[in-house]
């Protein structure tokens, strides 16, 4: 690393001002060796550019691999092909308008992203949703977790070659998407949460619909386990592959199943409960060896636990009859009902929709346990209608950093299994 030192400047604790720290680094990362250079140094390595158009990089990720035969000697993930500037867009939109952008970060678990953002805004404004709304948020969030894990299982198994798994998983995910559709009208980009609760009524037949899913799903999940858990090829492909030691998992800042697969007990739902999670009886599955198979087992168990939580929440919801929206707060959209009859209510509603609301000055960080790990929203408010600073800590962006660590010394075929086991969604990584 060549650091150009200017004698007229003084060194700061952060380095020399004006130094081009990365001048000898290539634009894309650390790995840009051409074949000619490789030949010069007598290396017999192939540089393989995997992606951004590749069947199993889960979107538009690019991985530059250096291969010795089939063995990976170096691996450099390159991201940013799906960068849409969500954080900057968040700073240019009013608080209500940001919720749809959160749908589009991790688009396979949109309700959980909505939830994280809405909780952050509620924390900023000091609003608390009524209990019934909180239970409904838990239900939708946990269903979303199952839906996200189903995508993970389907694509992960497909990457390893179990072709039918993806179709079975999408079949079950379809039922969950139908539930979302009945609840909010959208399947993928749900935009279903609002500050203060839910302003729309819950459809009548939704509870039976969810109960139906809870009745069907355990058997179907047992079928998946029959196909994979005791399959010798599946075990050979996942056991001992991509081992992350507990120390490495912590030092890479992993969260979610990648962390718990290594045996570290950290789940935001237990560590710092939000919503009403402290009232539910559920367990946090932990892995033992930190390999791909452990992470598979952890996620499978998480789906079962999510179903348990939904079942408990449904029992509460059915016995409760409280409002869904905290209308008493100023930061909550005024009821739509009055806007149709009285002029004052209509004006209030109109102003609120057009101008939004101005939360108090301050900053918040709200973390939730998303399907892939800890999802955090950091919002700085200057008292205006738009966030002054909006930052999303997406779990898969952080988790992806461990890929080179796992891929070193693995086979080429393992790389796709490792990308699958981290469970990335490029919309969430690139934001």
């Amino acid at each position, binding site marked *: 690393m060549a650091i150009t030192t200017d004698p007229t400047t003084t060194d700061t604790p952060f380095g020399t001002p004006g130094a081009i720290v990365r001048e000898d680094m290539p634009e894309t990362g650390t790995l840009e060796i051409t074949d000619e250079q490789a030949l010069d140094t007598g290396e017999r390595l*192939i540089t*393989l550019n995997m992606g951004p158009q*590749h*069947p*199993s990089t889960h979107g538009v990720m690019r991985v530059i691999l250096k*291969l010795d035969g*089939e063995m990976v000697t170096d691996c450099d993930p390159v991201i940013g092909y799906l960068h849409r500037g969500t954080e900057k867009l968040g700073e240019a939109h009013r608080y209500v308008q940001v919720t749809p952008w959160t749908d589009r970060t991790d688009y396979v678990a949109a309700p959980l992203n909505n939830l994280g953002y809405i909780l952050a805004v509620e924390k900023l404004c000091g609003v608390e949703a009524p209990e019934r709304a909180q239970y409904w948020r838990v239900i939708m969030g946990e269903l979303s977790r199952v839906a996200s894990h189903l995508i993970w299982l389907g694509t992960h*198994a*497909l*990457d*390893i*070659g*179990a*072709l*039918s798994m993806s*179709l*079975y998983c999408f*079949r079950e995910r379809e039922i969950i998407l139908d539930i979302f559709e009945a609840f909010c009208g959208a399947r993928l980009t749900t935009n279903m949460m609002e500050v203060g609760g839910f302003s729309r009524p819950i459809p009548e037949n939704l509870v039976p619909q969810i109960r139906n899913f809870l009745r069907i799903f355990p058997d179907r999940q047992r079928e998946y386990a029959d*196909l*994979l858990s005791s*399959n010798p*090829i*599946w075990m*050979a*492909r996942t056991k001992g592959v991509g081992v992350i030691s507990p120390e490495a998992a912590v030092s890479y800042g992993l969260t979610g199943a990648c962390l718990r697969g290594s045996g570290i007990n950290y789940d935001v739902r237990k560590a710092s409960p939000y919503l009403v999670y402290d009232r539910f009886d559920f367990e946090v599955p932990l892995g033992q060896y930190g390999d791909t198979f452990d992470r598979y087992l952890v996620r499978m168990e998480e789906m079962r636990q999510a179903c348990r939580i939904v079942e408990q929440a449904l029992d509460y919801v059915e016995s409760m009859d409280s409002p869904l929206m905290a209308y008493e707060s100023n930061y909550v959209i005024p009821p739509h009902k009055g806007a149709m009859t009285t002029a004052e209510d209509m004006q209030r509603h109109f102003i609120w929709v057009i101008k939004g609301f101005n939360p108090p000055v301050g900053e918040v960080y709200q973390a939730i346990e998303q399907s892939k790990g800890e999802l955090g929203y950091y919002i700085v408010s200057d008292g205006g209608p738009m966030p002054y600073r909006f930052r999303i800590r997406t779990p898969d962006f952080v988790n992806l950093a461990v890929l080179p660590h796992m891929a070193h010394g693995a*086979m*080429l*075929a*393992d*790389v*796709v299994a490792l990308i699958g086991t981290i469970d990335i969604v490029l919309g969430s990584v690139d934001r």
Partner: protein
Amino acid sequence: MAEQPIWLTFIVAFIIMNVLLVGMAYMTYFERKVMAAMQDRMGPTRTGPKGLLQPIADGIKLLGKEDLIPAAADKVVFFFAPLIVFVTALVSVAVIPFGGTVQIFGRDVNLFVTDLNVGALFILAIGSAGVYGIILGAWASANRYSLLGGLRSAAQVVSYEIILGLSLVGIFLITGSLSLRDILLAQQQPLEFGPLSLSNWYILSQPLAFVLFLIAAVAETNRAPFDLPEAETELVSGFHTEYSAFRFSFYFLGEYINMIVVSLFASTLFLGGTSGPGSEAYWGLGLLWLLLKTVIFLFFYVWLRTTLPRFRFDQLMGIAWKVLLPLALLNIVITAFIRLVSNGQVF
């Protein structure tokens, strides 16, 4: 085996070839329908009744596509490599017997193209020649995914060719012939145990060889779970990544014809080929029996593909050399020993 004029052999060969090509086309339909049923979906339904014209539509589509050749490709090799796969796949069916000599329109007709005295060896040899098409095509594409696919294919075929050959040695020891017709005839003689009369299909006397052959045959034809040379989730499309249009379909045809040939081969070797109730009286019934047995094998191929994940390259080689090869050798030793005992040459 009756002598027959050469033009008659040509007619038989022509019919067999065309039936094989149509069979291959409908093998894709069969695979898609069976997979769809296993995966809870419909499969092709739009082209013709129940989607029956789908293979024809696919063929026309492939013919109409633009034939792309990468700028860096070695053009001559790139042109001819797919043909090697296609031709070798087609040639090996010549030694498969579809029955004996029958009377059609008052004329003696042999229901096979040729009765080579080393028929089984011929199929194995042609099968391993076919891999040249894959390696050359992969190399000529000037694509790293193709190259890796070709390398995998070379290693895989070399390893599994050995298993395939060794698993058949037991049968050759029992029959005393490498001709597929002799093997077929030997299986038609029932085994007499006093009043009991058992079928002499080699699946009963060589069960281990049958299992070994089945595994090796799947690997030999590059099918799941041994489809590493074209593992689409790792190598995009493996050796045929750069191929398009009809050049691609030669690879595709070759793969499916290979599957059919291996299934025919397996039915002939282990399941008594055309033999079955009524096949001695009516040769058409024999053909039906052969078809049924072949379809069972093809169904097995599709079943594997929908169920199993893919092996990793090192695991694939490990299984071949550490598990299957010793078992194949053990099978030869046991068969040879029993043969010696039954001939009274020991004890």
